[in-house]
């Protein structure tokens, strides 16, 4: 059983970014899911510029507009944050024609954005892409986080999530 923690990744004026990190007793410095994404693809010259664009979009969200709903692409045909838990997950709607990377995330409010891992989108459907593992993990995280909100394990206070932020992955 994996124990995952929902923790603050970065704080900005207009938005707080959260991430998921696996909690290991023997190694508590394991990078978060989001840092894994940035480290992996920034090290690859093919995707370095894409990573810079994603990071700059995050800075735009953090400093200028918050997590405006129009910047996100639902990973289903549903709009916004639908009740169907399977349709909760979003990815950042970056450019951009044929943009090869996806960073999966869950927009809670304009002021709170939870970032997961991501991958290479090289097929029409995320499930058929190289990013499918990150996509499937993101779906699990979204489902679990949604459940935690429903069961009041966690709640929103301004631009922060408060409560028990340990997540037991299903």
């Amino acid at each position, binding site marked *: 059983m994996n124990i995952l923690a929902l923790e603050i990744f970065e704080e900005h004026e207009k938005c707080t970014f959260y991430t998921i990190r696996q909690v290991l007793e023997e190694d508590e410095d394991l990078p978060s899911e989001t840092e894994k994404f*940035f480290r992996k693809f920034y090290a690859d010259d093919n995707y370095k510029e894409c990573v810079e664009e994603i990071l700059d979009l995050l800075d735009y969200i953090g400093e200028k507009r918050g997590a405006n709903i129009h910047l996100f692409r639902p990973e289903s045909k549903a709009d916004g944050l639908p009740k169907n838990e399977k349709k909760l997950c979003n990815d950042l709607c970056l*450019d*951009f024609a044929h943009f090869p990377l996806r960073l999966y995330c869950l927009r809670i409010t304009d002021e709170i954005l939870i970032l997961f891992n991501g991958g290479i989108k090289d097929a029409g459907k995320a499930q058929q892409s190289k990013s499918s593992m990150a996509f499937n993990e993101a779906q699990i995280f979204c489902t679990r986080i949604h459940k935690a909100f429903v069961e009041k394990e966690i709640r929103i206070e301004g631009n922060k999530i408060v409560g028990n932020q340990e997540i037991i992955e299903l």
Partner: protein
Amino acid sequence: MKRNAFLEEIRKEIPEETKVFVRHHADIVIRVNELLEKKGWTQKKLAESMGKKPSEINKWLKGEHNFTLRSLSKLEVELGESIFNVVNTITNHSIDSGNVKMTIHRNFTKPTIDGFKKADTIIKNKNINLSA
């Protein structure tokens, strides 16, 4: 405010051109979608209005297609409001050294047939005379 050390390293390397592009693109995507909301239009309605396929409009608004000046112009016309503004600066090297002559068209409270009436106004040495 908490920042991730690795991301801070990447930030130092991001070219200014990338920053300008990302921010303009995000501004336009948000602006167009907000104008659609304001008009109560769906993407389908916009597509019908522009004589295009809904899938094509969806690509514009979901970022799968780079905006062109022409596509933005079409969107502006259909949505009836400005999507972006270009800063217009007037370079006039003589303004500090000599006389400047210009014609001002003034918008009257009671519109004329043309909406505007030419006011024979001459500006000399930056003293602007707005008497009609």
